[in-house]
């Protein structure tokens, strides 16, 4: 199993041709607009590791009128690893350690009001979903923003469906968690 990492994303960006660290960072942040921006330090460290592992190599320098920058390109081994990683299935998270679930259970144990909590949590989820919907329906929104908003929306929606079912089962859950 090859883990998800910055190195594969950088290798993916290098797949379109040689590039330097600054440009890779810029393209990463553009392609993954809702992700945490990459730090320059992280980009350079990762590039050095890719070179050490034979997955990328230095491809001269480029100054383009500005400071001289080291160019990198993916090696054949790098391309092979990238292809393997890209089609490797991500493990469907088998153990859900979810804060919302934990709060419902704790709320039952401590004699709280899980129903009210779930309703308030729904309100917060809906507010976030409205923001994301506004973002993706803004005229001229680029596809990367639309796709990342969709990803977040579908996950929040999954939470909501779980919360709705849980709210409907609270009586049974309370009897199980706190039989007293």
């Amino acid at each position, binding site marked *: 199993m090859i883990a998800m990492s910055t190195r594969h994303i950088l290798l993916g960006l290098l797949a379109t041709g040689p590039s330097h660290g600054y440009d890779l960072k810029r393209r990463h942040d553009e392609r993954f607009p809702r992700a945490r921006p990459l730090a320059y330090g992280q980009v350079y460290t990762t590039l050095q590791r890719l070179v050490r592992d034979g997955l990328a190599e230095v491809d001269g320098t480029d100054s383009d009128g500005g400071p001289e920058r080291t160019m990198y390109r993916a090696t054949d081994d790098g391309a092979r690893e990238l292809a393997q990683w890209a089609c490797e299935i991500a493990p469907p998270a088998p153990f859900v350690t979810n804060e919302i679930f934990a709060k419902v259970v704790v709320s039952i144990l401590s004699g709280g009001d899980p129903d*009210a909590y779930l*309703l*308030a949590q*729904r*309100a917060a*989820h*809906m*507010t976030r*979903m*409205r923001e*994301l*919907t506004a973002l993706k*329906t803004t005229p001229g929104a680029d596809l990367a923003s639309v796709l990342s908003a969709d990803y977040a*929306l*579908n996950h*929040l*929606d999954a939470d*909501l*469906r779980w919360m*709705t079912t849980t709210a*409907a089962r609270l009586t049974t859950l309370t009897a199980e968690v706190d039989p007293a």
Partner: protein
Amino acid sequence: MSNEEDGAVPLLAARDLVKAHGRNEALRGATVELRPGEILAVTGASGSGKSTLLHCLAGIVRPDSGAVTYGGERLDRLPERRLSELRRTEFGVVFQFGQLIPELTALDNVALPLLLGGARRQEAQASAGEWLERFGVRGQEELRPGEMSGGQAQRVALARALVTGPKVVFADEPTGALDSLASEQVMSALTHTARESGTAVLLITHDAQVAAYADREVRLADGAVLPLEVGV
């Protein structure tokens, strides 16, 4: 947030609505307000009373008790003839499916409410064409409902609901029969056009992703609105 708190006068309001279908009490004291130009999502599980609430608010059925007020007028007490007129001139309605007339083309379906209101055929068709364009279905004018995709048919239905310039559009699960991409196109078109024209929308849905297109959500359970109103 209540009317008293934000000072906005509701366009349409339901107070303590009770409505039973036989022994089944679909509404048990539901209170909801729709402000002018607002897009309000009403959500809730199947059987929570969403559709009955919409029918009462749109003047399609009368509640057993409680009040429905539209622009200061008691809608639930209006004679049938005045209700029909309101539904034709100030309300637009979109359902999950089946509301287009199968024998008519898209253009004639959209022009129909204008023709019923006494408009001339040429004017009605010109206006219908403009609304089809706003909903991104220009070029489909001559298609009949059976020849359109579900998403196209729903956008034609929306154009028909908005063609008379209503103050309120009632949409009951308008994307219920659509896949997620078609649903997205229908909701984008509906909310964009409603906001542009200042039309209020009462949107019934069980789908949170559809409800997220609205300005606000009220949630029904067992025929009443849950205490926490969420949103703006």
